[in-house]
């Protein structure tokens, strides 16, 4: 019994995972992975709490403020590639670029809107940071805990360095990796369909989300 609740827990709050990590514009070179998370996260929480965005008509202005920040700390190129896994080889350069663009929009559509509508005074506890040198450059894992009232949800960020800045390439909520979760879905899709169809599907999904959101408002 207990387990099924916990499972709901997983019901992934990538929302928060995604949005509680926002870029520090000043995060160039000097900052470690954890501090490149901290500053922007605080900034984001401030924007979410800001009463001037409470009104529905101000939500667009709010997302315009949040979105570029998120784009700054997430490495959507690597995230998108990771979700394709071995099927990435089926995508030529142009398709990969289109896919990255559409998939980024989908993530934004899903999570940004969600967190804007559903911020429940969550706070973030920073636990540990770990940096490892690999063949492909330094990789970091920052462990955090998302606190919502009496509930705590572990959120881990995997990061790599792009042009001297730490960027997120995967988020794990309750041990569930965002990239792997999408990879499972995409791989199943690509077993039977081709890359163009996947791009179309992702695009349609983002559009339908956008539509349903505007209808509700």
């Amino acid at each position, binding site marked *: *019994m*207990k*387990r099924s609740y916990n499972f*709901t827990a997983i019901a992934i709050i*990538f929302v928060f995972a995604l949005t509680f990590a926002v870029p520090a514009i000043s995060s160039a070179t000097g900052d470690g992975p954890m501090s490149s998370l901290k500053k922007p996260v605080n900034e984001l929480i401030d924007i979410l709490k800001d009463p001037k965005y409470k009104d529905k008509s101000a939500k667009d202005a709010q997302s315009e403020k949040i979105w570029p920040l998120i784009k700054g700390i997430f490495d959507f190129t690597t995230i998108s590639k990771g979700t394709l896994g071995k099927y990435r080889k089926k995508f030529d350069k142009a398709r990969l670029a289109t896919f990255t663009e559409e998939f980024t929009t989908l993530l934004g559509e899903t999570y940004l809107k969600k967190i804007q509508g559903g911020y429940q005074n969550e706070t973030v506890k920073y636990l540990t940071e770990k940096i490892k040198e690999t063949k492909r450059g330094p990789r970091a894992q920052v462990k955090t805990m998302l606190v919502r009232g*009496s509930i705590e949800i572990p959120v881990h960020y995997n990061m790599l360095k792009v042009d001297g800045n730490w960027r997120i*390439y995967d988020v794990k909520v309750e041990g569930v990796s965002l990239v792997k*979760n999408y990879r*499972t879905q*995409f791989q199943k899709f690509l077993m039977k369909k081709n890359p163009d169809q996947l791009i179309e599907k992702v695009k349609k999904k983002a559009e339908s989300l956008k539509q349903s959101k505007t209808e509700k408002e």
Partner: protein
Amino acid sequence: MKPVRLVRAFMPLLIFLLVFVMMTGCAARKNVADNSLSDSTISNSSDMVSEPEDDFEDEFADDDPFDSEDEQAEESTSDPLYYWNVAMHHVNDKLYFWILKPTAKGYRAVAPEQMRTGVKNFFHNLGTPIRFANCVLQGKPEKASLEFCRFIVNSTAGVLGFMDIAAKNPDLAAPSSEDFGQTLGVYGLGNGVYIVWPVFGPSSLRDTVGMSADSVLNPTSYIDGTTAVGVNAFEKVNAISFRIGDYESLKDAAIDPYEAFRDAYIQYRKKQISE
């Protein structure tokens, strides 16, 4: 319902299930081989553009420092019950949107958070025997004694478990939960087939066996008849009242919600077993 008698009656079935799990565990391994086969066919197909000097080529490959053994095995957890599972996935989806969510919303509106937290703590405290026994079975004496201490403190000073007094002391904060499904996982059993149960949600053959074994130690399974249904429903609604919106988040984000939940369940259990 007397679970002990029930379990005894089903013992042969359980043993059969265990054997079956082990066999499907092998099947899963065979799947890995199949996968690598299909892998090579992919890389052989001629219309593919090879990627020039991609720095992140293997970002998610086996040797990723934080992802070491995560890759292959779990992605090939077999799903022979696909059609049943998809059907049950839809049943549970409707159950959530039509019944559980509205109920939990109404309940959240009338019950203050403090009370709901108390109820959550109470049921968590009742689950101590399960977690304790499984800590012992997994050879984790420290965790077992922590569970025991917490149970004593919270059942007394915490007024029958409604308050998590123990957690006020950082040394007595709740450890990650153990159950028999995890114990079997620690013993090396694979998931076996993936199963979606109505009401209970995603599970696997191994975890289903685990769940029935755990129910022997769960006080609420000794309640009779309709009261039991009521108590379990209450526990569920109370738990959901903290997480309204989470299910929707994952569902909305997915292009294939069934696969998304299946994968999430498998990843989540894998993480729990590793703790």
